[in-house]
């Protein structure tokens, strides 16, 4: 049962092959059995899950089911879930029981999903390896010496290990796509503004976007149908009708123009990963797509720009964690300044502190123009590169990450080397474009991800292209040994 996709499980539930309660029990048992090894969950909610599962069974019986009714689901612990601890991977929020549901959470709830729990993540989504979590490192199910990627590493590992058929993730600079690639699953970052950010604890507000992490593109389409949509509580949410993402999965790729940015295939790319990507491009050619070489000349500036914009925004987004209204508060503060400094000093980990300091520096008087304003200008250049590219092509393809999963601890010493693991994913966030990572092979038994980037609001086209590929390849069906 646990090896089935969301689409298959939905059909099974509606056909009465199994109940949601049975399904939920099966996944809870798998979590119980395997998560000691993986550490992919921060909080498991068995009681809530079984309660929601029996409600879902009643709904299915009453013929009122949506494609997600009764499907077990895990939320990245960045989404506020009412009555459930929402830690954001931080000691700061270890005691934070959210008083409200994120819009995404309530949308999925009303679609009838069953909440298995909250998945592990890099602290406040800052990291590319899940090693910055207060709750410990998550192991990659393909090789437990390897990182699962980050920041949605818990979600990626849990889906890959079949501890949940689907999980939510968020992506600020690659945090859905990079762990999806490193764990061999499908992860979609929608267009900025497509999925509500309300209740998704902010890292960098102009970059953050929630999305589905699933085994297949078909599943991602089903989940995105329930996640996407306008939210009047989010000023940056776009009031644009949501198409049925499942409707165009089988559209032919004949004549589709796919651009390969030459900057994505230079010396920074691991050659074996490059070979896997080349092979997948050949599949697209077989499917009728036309391959065009393009240039995104400012690609090399994406990481530097991102490491100004994201820290600047996060430095002020995280000011609300001050030990006054919720979250960690230091013991017996001497005065107000002591309350702030110790609560925050104790509550945040090193990477979070680093980014807050970097962002504070970039916004501080005398440096604003040289850093923040400069980065905003380069952000425009990077975005313009894409705009020009999409005048000639329909999709961009390339690697999701420059290498397969690295070993735990390998990049801990040097934050910059860690930052460079997001070199191919960050630009889509800066521009606000939708992008997906899908399994595209293995190098030394670790998964490779193929990234497709689409034009604004062309999630349907991305999902179609990913689905077609998954019809002719079976990388997405590989199953990590032992799980």
């Amino acid at each position, binding site marked *: 049962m646990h090896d089935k996709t969301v689409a298959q499980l939905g059909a099974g539930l509606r056909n009465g092959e199994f109940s949601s309660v049975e399904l939920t029990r099966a996944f809870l048992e798998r979590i119980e059995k395997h998560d000691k090894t993986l550490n992919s969950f921060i909080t498991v909610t068995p009681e809530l899950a079984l309660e929601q599962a029996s409600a879902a069974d009643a709904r299915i019986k009453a013929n009122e089911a949506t494609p997600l009714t009764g499907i077990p689901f895990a939320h990245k612990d960045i989404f506020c879930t009412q009555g459930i601890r*929402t830690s954001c991977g931080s000691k700061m*929020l270890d005691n934070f029981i959210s008083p409200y549901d994120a819009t995404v959470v309530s949308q999925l709830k009303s679609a009838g999903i069953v909440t298995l729990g909250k998945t592990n993540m890099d602290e406040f989504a800052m990291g590319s390896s899940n090693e910055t979590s207060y709750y410990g490192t998550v192991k990659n199910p393909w090789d437990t010496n390897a990182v699962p990627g980050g920041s949605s590493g818990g979600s990626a590992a849990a889906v890959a290990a079949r501890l949940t058929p689907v999980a939510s993730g968020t992506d600020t600079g690659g945090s859905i796509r990079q762990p999806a690639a490193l764990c061999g699953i499908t992860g979609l970052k929608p267009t900025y503004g497509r999925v509500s950010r309300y209740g998704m604890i902010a890292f960098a507000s102009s970059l953050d976007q929630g999305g589905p992490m699933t085994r297949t593109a078909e599943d991602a389409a089903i989940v995105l149908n329930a996640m996407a949509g306008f939210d009047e509580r989010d000023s940056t949410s776009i009031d644009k009708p949501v198409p049925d993402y499942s409707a165009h999965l089988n559209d032919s790729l004949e004549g589709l123009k796919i651009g390969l940015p030459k900057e994505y295939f230079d010396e920074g790319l691991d050659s074996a990963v490059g070979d896997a990507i080349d092979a997948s491009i050949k599949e697209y050619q077989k499917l009728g797509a036309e391959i065009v070489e393009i240039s995104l000349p400012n690609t090399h500036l994406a990481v530097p720009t991102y490491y100004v914009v994201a820290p600047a925004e996060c430095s*002020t987004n995280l000011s609300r964690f001050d030990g006054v209204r919720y979250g960690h508060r230091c013991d017996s503060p001497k005065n*107000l300044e002591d309350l702030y400094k110790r609560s925050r000093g104790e509550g945040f980990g090193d990477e979070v502190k680093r980014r807050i300091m970097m962002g504070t520096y970039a916004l501080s008087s005398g440096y604003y123009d040289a850093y923040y304003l400069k980065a905003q200008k380069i952000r425009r250049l990077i975005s313009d590169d894409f705009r020009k590219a999409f005048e000639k092509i329909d999709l961009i393809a390339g690697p999701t990450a420059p290498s397969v999963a690295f070993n735990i601890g390998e990049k801990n010493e040097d934050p910059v080397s860690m930052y460079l693991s997001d070199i191919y994913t960050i630009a889509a966030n800066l521009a606000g474009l939708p992008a997906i990572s899908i399994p595209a092979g293995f190098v030394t038994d670790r998964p490779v991800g193929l990234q497709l980037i689409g034009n604004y609001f062309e999630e349907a086209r991305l999902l179609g292209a990913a689905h077609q590929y998954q019809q002719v390849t079976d990388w997405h069906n590989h199953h990590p040994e032992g799980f």
Partner: protein
Amino acid sequence: MEWEVVIGLEIHAQLATKSKIFSGAATAYGTAPNTQACAVDLGMPGVLPVLNKEAVRMAVKFGTAIDAHIAPRSVFARKNYFYPDLPKGYQISQFELPIVGAGHLDIELEDGSSKRIGVTRAHLEEDAGKSLHEDFHGLTGVDLNRAGTPLLEIVSEPDMRSAKEAVAYMKKIHSLVRYLEICDGNMQEGSFRCDANISMRPKGQKEFGTRAEIKNLNSFRFVERAINIEIERQIDILEEGGTVNQETRLYDSAKNETRSMRSKEEAFDYRYFPDPDLLPVELTSEDIEEIRKTLPELPHQKKERFTNSFGLTAYDAGVLTSSRELADFFENVVISSGNESKLAANWVTGDFMAALNKAGIEITKSPVSAEHLGGMIQRIADNTISGKIAKQVFEAIWNGEGDADTIIEKKGLKQITDSSAIEAIIDEIIANNPAQTEQYRSGKDKLFGFFVGQTMKATQGKANPAQVNSLLKKKLNK
């Protein structure tokens, strides 16, 4: 040395919206602590701001009323600092691109001339909560009900040269925002408050001196006193050869002194940057025009109309248009009086306002309605009662005894205008006072008043004074 003061004001006006600027929580004053602070106001993790349309409309209304440039595109920015009454650790404000640009208004000076004061800008921002310093075991309590209330910060040019000018400007803005119905102007509740920037320079010098900022002045009287005391303080420093520190000071009304608020040398670095949770506010010229059309008649326009069409003096017109409520009341009195505008102006600015002041009652709570006052004035105009008797009638109306006609009727206050009746009374008085009559007739004119008094006394003040005068003259001069 002769010194000149340079003053600029930053006025904070709470906008009279029902809900907060970025959340759907209520803005009512005086509710139990933190019961009007929703998840957004509390800065819960994950929450987001959405801008209140009415706040934008009110800001534009203000801008058009002072002939200001309205920005077609304005941007919200985060002003970052840590304080317990600021839940997010930043205040959402406007920095580089405020919604209202440069404008101006005219104030009247004591010598009757007027002076133009420039408004640099006015921007939208959220108010902070309140720290309560009552003792909670040595701790401070924080109430976030006020957090997120919309504020319009109105920044003036450093155009004022005395505390009186500053107060005149502040009163003008106060009257304007109430005319526009964008702020209730309640200074006790903090709906309207100001910070004053004050510096001194030798008279004739062009450059400004170093300024001190006095925070949170919440009455006109305090503004005047705080500025004057600060002027003295700065002059004392300068004359002793010292320098004024650029700092924030607090006015202590009990001690009538200003004192430094933050002794920390720490330079503030607010790290303003565009709030990524909000998009630029865009207004088309049609949007702005539409709002401009909703402007009521403004104080200066009303004043002009009152002098032109009611024939009032500039002074009376100024007093009567100082608040929209008073002007409306006056106009209703004029209507009910049958257009006796001058008499109405005398009564409203005279006895009526004196009675309100004495009782400490706001005009909106006046026990005398405009209709009743107008009705009474009509009876003065048509000679039913004299001006003197009117004072009695007014008092009775104030005490709730009914309208003028009812009171006149009930108390028999109707003026005696029947010449033969008055003549009969006069004849009797002359007959009863032969000595005085003799003296008057032999040239002691002053005694005329005696006869008037006697006549009025005999008629209990109801005789028409003009008739009494002419009849007395006729009879006595015989």
